[in-house]
């Protein structure tokens, strides 16, 4: 018996002793069930801004329109509701970092350790957008939304690479990555969350959405699936439209 086996068997034995006699019991009967039970998803409420201030909205809409410009493939990020999506996320538990450990100490970490700053996502957007707004004005001689598309791309690229420095405690590279990630979420997530309006991104990539029966298609290879996408809320959205 080597040491590892010894330790394992001892541990198992101790656990068995601690739990005492096995209390085997057979349980039968129907699983509880309730009529009308259901947990419908709650769609975001349309209209208005829950987190962003007017100036931030202008800036965000200009940014997402460069990240996802309107073209042959899809409408623009703004028209797809990406800013609405980010706004509702920042106003909710994501914005306040409800699922992250947010107590100190806050020390610079390695890249593999992920985000180590004390700011919540809401705080990063507030500080980051203000700092970006100022840095662009100072460097490019005009507000971001007034710049030409080429200049806007240049400003965003410089933010992404770290060439454009932001004042305060916001890390520009990290901020750009956050905005890009959240914009893509808004673009591709189910419309229930406020973005992906009319399932534009799903139509673009041919994703059929929340369908769950493809048995007819299992053995039909190399053929595109012909049916349009369905949202989690698909039927509710239809009901409201109709």
């Amino acid at each position: 018996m080597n040491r590892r086996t010894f330790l394992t068997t001892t541990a198992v034995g101790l656990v068995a002793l601690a739990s005492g006699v096995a209390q085997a019991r057979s349980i039968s009967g129907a699983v509880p069930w309730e009529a009308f039970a259901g947990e419908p998803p709650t769609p975001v409420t349309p209209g208005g801004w829950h987190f962003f201030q007017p100036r931030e909205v202008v800036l965000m809409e200009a940014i997402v329109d460069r990240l996802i410009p309107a073209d042959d493939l899809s409408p623009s990020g703004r028209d797809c509701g990406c800013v609405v999506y980010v706004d509702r996320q920042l106003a909710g538990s994501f914005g306040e970092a409800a699922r992250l450990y947010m107590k100190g100490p806050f020390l610079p970490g390695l890249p593999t350790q992920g985000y180590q700053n004390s700011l919540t996502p809401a705080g990063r957007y507030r500080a980051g957008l203000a700092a970006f707004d100022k840095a662009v004005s100072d460097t490019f001689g005009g507000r971001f939304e007034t710049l030409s598309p080429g200049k806007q791309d240049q400003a965003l690229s410089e933010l992404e690479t770290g060439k454009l420095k932001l004042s305060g405690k916001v890390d520009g590279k990290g901020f750009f990555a956050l905005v890009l990630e959240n914009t893509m979420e808004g673009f591709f997530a189910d419309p229930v969350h406020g973005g992906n309006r009319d399932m534009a991104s799903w139509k673009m990539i041919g994703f059929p959405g929340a369908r769950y029966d493809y048995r007819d298609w299992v053995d039909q290879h190399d053929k595109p699936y012909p049916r349009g996408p369905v949202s989690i809320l698909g039927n509710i959205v239809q009901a409201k439209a109709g």
Partner: protein
Amino acid sequence: MKTLLSLALATSALASPATAADLQSFQVEKGHYQAILGDCAACHSKAGGKLYSGGEPLETPFGTLVPPNITPDRETGIGAWTKADFRNTMKNGVGKDGKHLYPAMPYPSYHLMPDEDVDDLWAYLQTVEPVHHAVEANQLPFPFNQRIVMRGWNWLNFEPEPFQPDEKQSAEWNRGAYLVQGPGHCGTCHTPKSALGADESDAALQGATLQGWYAPNITGQKRIGIGDWSKNQIVAYLKTGSNGHAIAAGPMVEAIQDSTSQMKDDDLQAIATYLLSVKADDEDGGGEQPKPLASDDSQMKAGAEIYRTSCAACHGMDGKGAEHLFPALAGSAAVQQDDVSTLIHVILAGAKGPYTKDRPTAPAMPSFAFHLSDEQVADVATYIRNDWGNAAPAVSADAVGDARGAD
């Protein structure tokens, strides 16, 4: 050695004359079976309550009645009753001290039971745990709360006669007829009622609506009855809750769990034989067969798309479902009934099949009330009533709205 010993014990048991206690326990056992046949628990017990200590309120067209406590508790049950009181209740609808019962208590059916069976049931009920639980049974509004009105009702609607076997039919058929008309009181739900709440005897077992469910036609009618079922399929349905294609839902779930699944196989065979022999008014060919709606009908098109996204994963694009798990909609009588209460109810509220010893899975369908609008429920219901060879009139959104409002 053990075998020898038990053999010896068995021999001595055979040899010794039955004691009074043996006879009594035999009677209690027989009475227990009568309680299963009569499904006393369906009304007199409720989920989470003690056996026979009183049931869920029954909403009748005349008002609310609450099935009383029938445990042997002296104050709140029937512990102070005599056997004669009990017989009079079961057979004449007249309880202790001459109190008239309402026919929600199916004495118009139970009166077919022989005295011996009623006495066995009485013996059994004496052995049930007494539960102190007062129930105010009569919650009807005036004038129906005046029990004396039942005298007139009985005079008009009730003839207490024993079961008359039909000599031209087999013993099995007669047993089935007795069980269906008598203790099984199938007609209490499945027979349409007159304005006075009495059975329309010339439409026996042709289907009726109660408490938001349509208890379907269970005659031998092919399209909307059970005429397409084999005898064994009827037996399987009653014994296990599923015959492979149809799975029970609604109030029938409890009837199967508490009553038919515990009946003897011979009795179930007898019931099936009898039911298949009952002919409905519009016998096949006699009544007009509806034509299926065209597949390019706007409701059909919308319904097919909803079916594809919301229903097909379980019930299949071919409407055949999955054996014992998801009921077949193709050819389903429940789907094609003229009265769409059950269909709408199942789509809105969901449904759960019976839990039985043979089929313990009790498959369930989720509620679509939050997911589909009235129009969408109407469209998808219309669609499943008119594809795969089904044919039945379209369902209107108003009917769905009414059902939703009532729940």
